[in-house]
């Protein structure tokens, strides 16, 4: 059962019933879900959680809707992998990757959309909508299909065909909008006011955002009911970052972990880093930017939860890190070559930031570190397409193969085709 009890304004604290509202009627501050923590502390135990399904709905007591009604395509309970190779490369002895590439539509968005879709259906909406350039569109279209809802997905008209397929296959109404990203934002805001749709990150945003907390619950449980000492999380709107923090804190409030003083560090690409830029200025004033980065899934120039992400950075003693597009590609290759995980560009941002923090000594060698990889690399292949070693072309006989292999080995020895980032036994620390 759900223990959600009300909506609460994050600015003025006013409370509202659990309805499809997202801003406070008085101050227009954002709303978030409040829970009956007293009842949760009484009823929720590790054992009760462990009896649940191996999806995000395992934690339904801490979500704003009931699991019996869930629109569930199997999001969550993704692997938490100890990373000895990458840890060795970065000088970290207790490094884990939370691999959210393996969700049903290959990104963490399935966690938030399964909650948004379930709640939207509970509210009686028949249409699920979003504006997206990729991961969110895929997940909304898939969950709407499963839930028997109409899906309306708005995309910029210049979006590459390849990105459209991952949503189009589920049969949504795709609407390509001419104009800038700002134009798309303004249009969707107006449409959400005018039509009776569940727009996942507008009118059902408070419910949607709660799905991200499940990343924290899973990590804590998979670590044997321990909170990590340091989390490295990609920053886009800032919502994921703040919800992972909230999830860890809830585990402590409810007595499910003894210690929860996790440092939260956030990673952005330099071409869209309004949160890290404000953190570096030691300010809580976000200056919106026009995104220009290969990490498209993090390209949010005016982050809705940027201010709250800055608060978490401050309270937790974490760091903000902005990395170049070149570092992003190196990060993707490093993760793939060291651990066999092909992450999208946002994963490259996280690994590049992790590497910086390790090299700068901001993460200690014995810290228990979790890096969050939020989407799969097949969606952003173009980022690495011309950075990979091409295949050997040979005639169909042994001699041709052996000649080609000898040439490749010479090239590797000369450094022309080396696997540039990592080899077994090779410590990368300078």
């Amino acid at each position, binding site marked *: 059962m759900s223990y959600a009890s009300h909506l609460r304004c994050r600015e003025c604290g006013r409370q509202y019933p659990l309805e499809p509202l997202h801003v406070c009627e008085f101050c*227009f501050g954002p709303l978030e879900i409040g829970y009956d923590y007293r009842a949760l502390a009484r009823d929720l135990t590790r054992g009760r959680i462990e009896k649940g399904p191996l999806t995000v709905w395992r934690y339904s007591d801490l979500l704003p809707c009931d699991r019996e009604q869930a629109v569930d395509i199997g999001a969550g309970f993704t692997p938490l992998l100890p990373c000895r190779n990458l840890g060795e490369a970065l000088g970290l002895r207790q490094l884990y990757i939370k691999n959210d590439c393996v969700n049903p539509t290959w990104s963490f968005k399935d966690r938030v959309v399964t909650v948004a879709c379930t709640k939207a259906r509970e509210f009686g909406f028949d249409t699920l909508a979003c504006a997206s350039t990729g*991961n969110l569109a895929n997940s909304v279209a898939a969950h709407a299909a499963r839930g028997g809802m109409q899906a309306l997905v708005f995309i910029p008209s210049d979006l590459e065909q390849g990105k459209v397929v991952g949503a189009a296959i589920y049969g949504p109404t795709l609407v390509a909008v001419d104009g800038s990203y700002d134009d798309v*934002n303004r249009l969707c805001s107006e449409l959400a006011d005018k039509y009776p749709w569940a727009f996942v*990150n507008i009118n059902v945003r408070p419910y949607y955002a709660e799905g991200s907390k499940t990343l924290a619950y899973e990590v804590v449980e998979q670590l044997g009911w321990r909170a990590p000492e340091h989390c490295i999380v990609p920053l886009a709107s800032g919502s994921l970052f703040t919800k992972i923090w909230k999830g860890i804190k809830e585990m402590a409030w409810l007595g499910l972990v003894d210690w929860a003083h996790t440092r939260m560090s956030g990673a952005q690409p330099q071409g869209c880093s309004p949160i890290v830029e404000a953190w570096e200025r030691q300010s809580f004033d976000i200056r919106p930017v026009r995104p220009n980065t290969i990490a498209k899934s993090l390209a949010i120039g005016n982050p809705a939860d940027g201010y709250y992400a800055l608060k978490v950075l401050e309270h937790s003693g974490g760091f903000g890190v902005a990395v170049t597009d070149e570092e992003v590609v190196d990060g993707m290759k490093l993760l793939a070559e060291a651990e066999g995980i092909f992450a999208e560009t*946002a994963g490259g941002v996280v690994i590049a930031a992790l590497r910086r923090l390790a090299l700068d000594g901001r993460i200690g060698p014995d810290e228990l570190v979790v890096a969050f990889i939020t989407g799969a690399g097949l969606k952003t292949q173009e980022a690495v397409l011309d950075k990979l070693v091409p295949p050997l072309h040979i005639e169909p006989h042994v001699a041709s193969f052996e000649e080609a292999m000898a040439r490749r080995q010479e090239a590797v020895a000369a450094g022309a085709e080396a696997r540039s980032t990592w080899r077994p036994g090779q410590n990368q620390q300078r």
Partner: protein
Amino acid sequence: MAKQRVKFTFPTELIRDPVIWRLGKEFEVVTNIRRADVTEDRGWVVLELEGELEEIERGIQWVVEQGVRVDPVPGDILEG
């Protein structure tokens, strides 16, 4: 009559200009400020605009032309 909730972000050079007063004076738009944070070198204001939809849009266009950034209250809606 329509209502729109928007966020104005002011650059330093416009902090001293009465942009919101002029918006209400020059267009048939009622401006209703709900939350703001303004210092000597930057500022933002969250407000509701009420009027005919076309008049609100003309007013917003004018505000943008003055150099103010205008965003929906929930921030960027378009996500990756």
